[in-house]
């Protein structure tokens, strides 16, 4: 069975290799090949899953060492895989949702002449993401971490001819690189502390290390948090996610909703032992999570671009997960559970958004939608189920997972628990508001669409079955997953051997929390209904309040980045270029010029007159003779 783990990664990697180097010959079959290899990977995942279920809960980990990557002195980085319950959960999510999105893309990208390359990139992403979750050491995890960054870069900028897409891709990569500093410094700290990169060497010793090296362990925690912030679009490194929506919609669904952006949650959960030993780092994690869940929700309320509204929502939902992961053993399991259910419903929502755009000539402004439920019934229903799931409608996936996180937040105890719990509740209310807003603006009310710039009137229509089938499957997931996971606490039992679990000590009962979330839900939906369903939606965005305007601009974070980093950086590099030329080079050229100047003066002595040379010769000889005589005399 161990050998299959390698194949799991190799299959999509092979696909990427073939599709990206195969040339035009493969244009006709490329998308099928890519989908097939994703499916193979999924099948392998299911086989491994079945095998794992057959074993005892404590004996489920599989390990496979392929080769030593970098052996230098005490530095040993291996290429080895570790498949335990946590990795397994991710493998199924990645390959499952990944395969569905491959299928969806066959239809969505049908008219794109570079479809083969698109599938190559998608396969590359799958391989890198699987590498990330299967690695048995941090060094290899880093490779996968950067690999998904590359795939994300390539896919966001897939429509490279659009300058906005190219810029967004670059921005995503750069912001992620800032986060990567965290991961690389974290890995270096691990090496200097533990002398290894392997999970097996580091995690069991984390507690012991924190007694003698407390500051270092806390430092590792902070560095991993920085990494997670970059990849999972958490404040303060969240700015790239909204722009990343420039990529094709399947990419947004797969990478920027269901899988890659949750890598930060994986990292924190995987490194749970380190965070458990570093309470300060944990506090930072929950703070980041809580801030982001509100931040993303507020941004999501103000966006008129359907994908950007969903992106704000993704940010906010991942905020929930990060917060849960920061709660320690109370929250790890629920972070992952929410991650999986979110993977279903958010992927479904994005695919739904893609379907809407597909039928609307790629229009993304929700103010130009309206009343689409009549034209796109399948999309409407699947999107609607995703909507109900995300707002936490009782009985659907989101209800179970989000509710548990809110409970866990209260269970943290003390003032901290109250603050986090209230933030989470507030977030739930805002989620209900902005998702209802999206729903109403898109599918209800009167139609508001207008001809596009070329004068084409959109003819909304349902998408082909290659697109609707994945949406239907994901809708089933959105409805059922949460319930299935909660029956008999099966998900908790499944993950507990890896992440550990404790109930915590909640000051409020579970029933009270559920009641609280219901109230929040009703308030959120009610306000949205009052604002968007009772009144007609203006086709041009009103000016809005100060907060709305700020939220439209991502709460001015981009402006801050622009002024401080972009402008500041430009000035810095420009002045450095100037200094390099005038100062560093100036010293050199100055020396050269002064030597030249001096020789210019001296040159005047060479006047070409024989007799003046003769005088100097005579004078020189006289001086020599005199000097000799003088020396003799002394």
């Amino acid at each position, binding site marked *: 069975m161990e050998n299959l783990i390698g194949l799991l990664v190799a299959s999509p990697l092979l696909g990427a290799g073939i599709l990206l180097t195969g040339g035009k010959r493969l244009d006709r079959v490329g998308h099928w090949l890519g989908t097939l290899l994703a499916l193979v990977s999924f099948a392998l995942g299911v086989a491994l899953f079945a095998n794992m279920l057959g074993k005892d809960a404590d004996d489920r980990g599989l390990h496979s060492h392929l080769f030593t990557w970098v052996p230098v002195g005490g530095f040993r980085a291996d290429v080895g895989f570790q498949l335990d319950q946590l990795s397994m959960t991710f493998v199924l999510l990645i390959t499952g949702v990944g395969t569905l999105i491959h299928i969806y893309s066959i239809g969505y990208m049908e008219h794109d002449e570079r479809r083969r390359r698109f599938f190559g990139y998608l396969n590359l992403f799958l391989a890198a993401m699987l590498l990330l979750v299967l690695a048995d050491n941090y060094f290899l995890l880093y490779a996968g971490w950067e690999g998904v960054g590359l795939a994300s870069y390539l896919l966001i900028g897939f429509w490279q001819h659009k300058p906005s897409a190219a810029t967004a891709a670059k921005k995503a990569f750069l912001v992620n690189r800032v986060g990567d500093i965290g991961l690389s410094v974290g890995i270096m700290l691990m090496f200097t502390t533990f002398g290894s990169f392997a999970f097996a060497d580091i995690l069991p010793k984390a507690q012991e290390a924190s007694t003698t090296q407390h500051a270092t362990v806390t430092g590792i925690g902070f560095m991993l948090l920085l990494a997670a912030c970059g990849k999972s679009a958490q404040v303060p490194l969240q700015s790239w996610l909204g722009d990343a929506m420039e990529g094709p919609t399947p990419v947004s669904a797969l990478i920027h909703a269901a899988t890659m952006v949750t890598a930060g949650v994986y990292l924190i959960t995987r490194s749970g032992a380190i965070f458990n030993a570093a309470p300060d780092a944990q506090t930072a994690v929950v703070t980041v999570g809580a801030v982001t869940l509100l931040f993303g929700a507020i941004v999501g309320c103000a966006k008129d671009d359907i994908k950007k509204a969903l992106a704000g929502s993704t940010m906010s939902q991942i905020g929930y997960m990060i917060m849960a992961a920061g709660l320690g053993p109370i929250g790890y399991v629920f972070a992952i559970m929410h991650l999986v259910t979110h993977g279903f419903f958010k992927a479904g929502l994005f695919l739904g958004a893609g379907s809407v755009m597909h039928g609307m000539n790629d229009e993304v402004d929700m103010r130009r939608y309206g009343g689409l439920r009549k034209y796109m019934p399948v999309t409407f229903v699947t999107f609607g189920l995703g909507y109900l799931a995300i707002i936490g409608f009782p009985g659907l996936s989101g209800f179970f997972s989000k509710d548990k996180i809110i409970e866990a937040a209260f269970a943290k105890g003390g003032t901290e628990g109250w603050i986090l719990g209230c933030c989470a509740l507030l977030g739930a209310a805002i989620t209900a508001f902005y998702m209802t807003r999206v729903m109403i603006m898109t599918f209800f009310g009167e139609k508001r669409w207008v001809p596009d710039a070329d004068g084409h009137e959109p003819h909304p229509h349902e998408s082909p079955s290659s697109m609707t089938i994945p949406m239907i499957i994901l809708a089933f997931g959105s409805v059922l997953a949460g319930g299935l996971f909660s029956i008999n606490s099966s998900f908790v039992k499944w993950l507990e051997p890896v992440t550990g679990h404790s109930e915590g000590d909640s000051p409020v009962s579970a029933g009270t929390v559920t009641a609280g979330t219901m109230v929040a839900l009703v308030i959120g939906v009610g306000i949205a209904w009052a604002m968007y369903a009772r009144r007609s939606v203006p086709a041009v965005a009103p000016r809005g309040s100060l907060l709305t305007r700020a939220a439209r601009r991502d709460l001015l974070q981009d402006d801050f980045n622009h002024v401080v980093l972009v402008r500041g950086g430009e000035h810095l590099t420009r002045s450095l270029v100037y200094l390099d030329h005038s100062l560093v080079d100036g010293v050199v050229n100055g020396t050269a010029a002064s030597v030249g100047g001096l020789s210019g003066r001296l*040159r005047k002595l*060479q*006047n*070409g*007159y*024989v*007799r003046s040379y*003769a*005088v100097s010769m*005579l004078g020189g000889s006289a001086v020599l003779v005199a000097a000799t005589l003088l020396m003799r005399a002394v």
Partner: protein
Amino acid sequence: MNPANYLYLSALLFTIGAAGVLIRRNAIVVFMCVELMLNACNLAFVTFSRLHGNLDGQVIAFFTMVVAAAEVVVGLAIIVSIFRSRHSASVDDANLMKL
């Protein structure tokens, strides 16, 4: 006769030669003055040879004559070719050897 007198004569001849090189413009005259200086040296060498009672000085005097002869050959050729091209034997007119 006091050998010192030969040395005085040598010094005098050398000074006349040096002054001639410095003062006169005509290349031929300058050239003759150079010869005068060389011969003044020869006189000194021979005198010293006599004074010290060995032949070193005389040997060197012969060397000097050979060098002087070679110099005349080259030098006169240069002067003649300069005169041909510039119609002047003035050393001040031939000042092209500068940067």
